[in-house]
């Protein structure tokens, strides 16, 4: 293509190509912040602390579950850390980042500038959601990598004992741990969707974070009340623990699929609600 034809087309010709610029910029905004890096740092410390605690206590597999297997096989540090981060650390991180996403821009006033740039409201929302999804994956992968490093340094590593009593190679074990990290990051998407929606309602990021975390706590309490068992399958975190089904032989997909369907349902509902809110909202 000659130079003149490129110039000729001007903006129109290249218009479609630059759509990704906003998404890249959004990732820089999320991951460039000290707050995000500190959060990922805390998550990276989880395997380290667990690993050191187990090493110091010298316990040799007395504990039940994945924690008890760490001393025998460092690979289980990944699984145990992911499992232990799931009820609190990971949701907290997702709550902070998602609560910040739109409310943060609104409170800074940059939302105005972004919209007159123009970013386009639907497109900006999509970029925010993609960045949140990438953050969810980054958060679980941080634990995965940290758990891998710490586990391999502190503990012996070898073939992996599955829940069903069969043993698979270390490579397959790592692959399954990776799948667990991915499944857990997908499990966080429903919460991220709620956070994004709440964030679209307010111009105060702290309020958005508090409300999102409050919703998470309420869902947790509802999941713990047996009388509500009829609606349990619909609750966001009811099947969060199903990631462990990946350690069966063969993996049991039913609950994982259900969990992901529930996450998808929450995501669709709250994402479209955030869309309705953002596209109809007066930006002041």
């Amino acid at each position, binding site marked *: 293509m000659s130079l003149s034809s490129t110039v000729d087309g001007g903006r129109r010709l290249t218009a479609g190509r630059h759509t990704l610029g906003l998404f890249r910029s959004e990732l820089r905004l999320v991951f460039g912040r000290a707050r995000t890096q500190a959060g990922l740092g805390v998550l990276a410390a989880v395997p380290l602390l667990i690993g050191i605690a187990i090493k110091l206590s010298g316990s040799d597999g007395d504990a039940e579950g994945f924690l008890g297997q760490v001393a025998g096989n460092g690979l289980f540090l990944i699984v145990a850390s992911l499992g232990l981060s799931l009820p609190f650390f990971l949701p907290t991180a997702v709550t902070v980042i998602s609560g910040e996403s739109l409310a943060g821009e609104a409170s800074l006033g940059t939302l105005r500038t972004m919209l007159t740039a123009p970013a386009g409201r639907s497109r900006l929302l999509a970029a925010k959601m993609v960045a949140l999804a990438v953050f969810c994956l980054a958060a679980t992968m941080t634990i995965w990598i940290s758990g891998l490093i710490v586990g391999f340094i502190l503990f012996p590593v070898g073939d992996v004992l599955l829940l069903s009593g069969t043993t698979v190679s270390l490579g397959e074990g790592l692959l399954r741990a990776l799948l667990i990290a991915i499944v857990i990051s997908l499990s966080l998407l429903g919460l991220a969707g709620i956070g994004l929606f709440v964030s679209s309602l307010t111009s105060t990021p702290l309020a958005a974070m508090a409300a999102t975390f409050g919703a998470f706590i309420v869902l947790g309490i509802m999941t713990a009340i047996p009388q509500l068992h009829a609606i349990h399958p619909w609750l966001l975190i009811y099947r969060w623990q199903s990631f462990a089904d990946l350690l*069966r032989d063969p993996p049991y997909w039913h609950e994982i699929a259900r969990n992901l369907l529930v996450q998808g349902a929450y995501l669709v509902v709250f994402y479209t609600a955030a869309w*309705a809110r953002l596209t109809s909202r007066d930006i002041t």
Partner: protein
Amino acid sequence: MGVTQRSRRWLVPVTAVAVVAGVGALGPVVADASPKLPGITAQDLLAKVQTAKVDGLSGTVRSSANLGLPSIPGVEGGNQLSELLSGQHTARVAFATPDKARVSVLDNQAERVWTTDGKSAWAYDSSRREAVKLTLPARSAKPDKPQAAPKNYDPQAVAKQFLDAIDPTTKVEVSGTEKVAGRDAYKLRLVPKTDRTTVGSVTLAIDSKTWVPLDVTVMPRTGNDPAVELGFSSVSFDVPAASTFTFTPPKGVKVTDKKVPATRQAPHPVKPPKAVGPKGEKAPAQRGDKPTVLGEGWESVVMVRGVKTTGNGPVDQLLANARTVQGSWGKGKILTSKMVSALITDDGRVFAGLVTPDTLQAAAAKAPR
């Protein structure tokens, strides 16, 4: 863009909620639409069931029990019997003729496995990382199923005999068809003729090709939710690979060798909760003497004597809230639920059954002291 036009955007999330709720509520209904199958009588169906013979199967069994039992505070977990009597459970089962079977109960982040390849049997508990091995005695090459059947038997005759026998107490009918685990099945329904039981009906789903029962559902007399449902959520009638039934104790797992009981109880592939065997069940309350069965059919009541009912915190608490009743049989407390009723007399007898409280008291009145 006007204000009304903007508020119309909220129709999108509202629609999303409706679609999600619709798929969630109606999806299973649509998927389980009754298949079209040729008509069949109950007797023919029962006859077919007896001829059912598969060389192997594997699948996932899901059970859910909602007996309406009061939850006893402080007795959560640690008790497999009470655990299996409530809530939902999923197990993977596999079976191959003549004597290979595997059941693994999929617990939360753990798994309990019982498997036998005919020569040895294993029980494995992943949460404790303990395995128990049973070496089975050498056995004759004869497969045990056909052995159990009489030499000259006519399935039709047996079916008729069975129907005649239960006719006074129970209505038996083919009540339609349904899809179970993706297979077309006939529904065989048994309805008690008496109103003294809490059981509303028992429905079996029977596969229309292999004539294997795929699902059993017990409905209470009142309410629309099954009290017990046990059935396949997926099933394959391919013979599973032999390796499915072997167990190699992994490194780091404590293995206990155990003596073989004289009459081996192989885990039944279809009913995993019954197969909890090797662990042994601790009864929830203190043991009394041997239970006696009073009455018959749906009205059967079990009596246990000499049960110490005080000094057990949670049970005391439960009884404190129970209704006090008295009659010619004496005085006691009665506990009722949707399915099960229990009468605890002050002289230490316990009557229980799938019957109404009145039936229970009537049984107590006739019972030997």
